[in-house]
């Protein structure tokens, strides 16, 4: 679901431009507002959605689950650490809300010092987990909440 920007909310701070790993968030030279220049190339990482202080960035749902004319709106609440999504269908009836954590620890508490992390062991190299997953940057040895640290396993299907 690639992102797009509501021009009337964006204040041109450039946070999304700075954070987009795909370099596709740009500032329009005339209106001074951000826009996604290449939705096809969007990684759908939603870093920009989370970084935007104005709640200006929303996403376009795929036709498979949301026919044309739907709207997906996102709102972050940084103090509570949650991000909420509201999907509204064209007929205005099918309407759902989803809620997920933006972060599980206060902002700035866990800044990985990747330079200090020892090189990956053979077991790590063979694992399917990515290098920077919590296990490998050893965040769960601190007090980061993960499914594992809460004694939970991922269930099949979607929770909502």
């Amino acid at each position, binding site marked *: 679901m690639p992102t797009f920007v509501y021009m009337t909310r964006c204040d041109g701070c*450039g946070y999304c431009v700075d*954070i987009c790993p795909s370099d596709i968030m740009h*500032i329009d030279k005339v209106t*001074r507002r951000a826009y996604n220049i290449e939705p096809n190339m969007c990684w759908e990482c939603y870093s920009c959605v989370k970084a935007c202080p104005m709640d200006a960035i929303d996403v376009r749902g795929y036709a498979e689950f949301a026919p044309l004319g739907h709207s997906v*709106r996102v709102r972050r609440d940084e103090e*509570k650490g949650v991000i909420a999504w*509201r999907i509204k269908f064209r007929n205005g009836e099918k309407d759902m809300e989803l809620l997920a*954590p933006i*972060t599980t620890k206060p902002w700035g508490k866990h800044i990985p010092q990747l330079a200090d992390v020892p090189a990956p062991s053979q077991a790590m190299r063979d694992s399917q987990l990515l290098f920077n997953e919590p296990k490998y940057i050893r965040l769960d040895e601190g007090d980061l909440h993960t499914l594992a640290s809460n004694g939970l396993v991922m269930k099949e299907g979607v929770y909502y």
Partner: protein
Amino acid sequence: MIDSNPFAELAAFISPTAMQAYVVLMVVLVAVGTILDMLHKKSGQYFFENARRAKRNATRTLSSGEKGALALKTLGKEVLTSGEFNNPKRRISHLLTMYGFIIFVVTTAILIFAYPTPDDPAPTVVPLLWHLGAAMLAFGGYWFWFSIRVDVASEGVKWYQLNGRGDLFIVGLLGMATFALLWSFTRDVDTLGTLFFVLFVAFSTLLFGSVYWSKFAHMFFKPAAAFQKRVIKADGSRENMPAVYDPSDPDVQARFPDVPAYMGPNPPNMGLGIKREAPSHF
């Protein structure tokens, strides 16, 4: 120097009527530019359609008393104190620019219409305010230009690179304030004074004549948009935005089980992420 009326001295070369006609012309240009801008961008049409749509989605109707209260709040927060800016630097510079502009424009009109010639000297406070307004405008404007202009850092644009239409407004403001001050300080130096005066008039004309292309009209649209934002929150239409959930509420946790799974049953206060270090990859 800063306590004397520069326009009265000018009356020896330019008739007060001509100056007054110029001010009136500028007011007309702003009005025409704003109307053309509204027609061209269809912003008025968009605004009213959006408001109608919001009304349809509203869960309750606001009384006119409530609307009045919201209008007052908008006036107090977004209009008079720019309270919607989260970044304090941005907010202070915006306030300096805004009040500087208002003081400068109002005192210019007073000086030109009420005290046009040296025969009726203006009370000292008016020219003082005129200079103060120009100084506030210049200070706030240059601060904005050099350290907070919208895209400079993010897109690797250097401070001296003009962006054409995007910069018309701020360039007009800065040119007007800067050359007004320079003209006032060099009034006794013939050629230099004349040069700065000509530039002052040129930039003023640019500022007030380019409303159709520049972002001048945001002065009028911004309060309207801020008011509408408050209305959609109060009447429950909330522009399709999701509700504001409290993750420690058991009902919320029951409905969205992965919130307690990841954050524990008693989610800590996360602190304001907006105060975190800004992303800066350049």
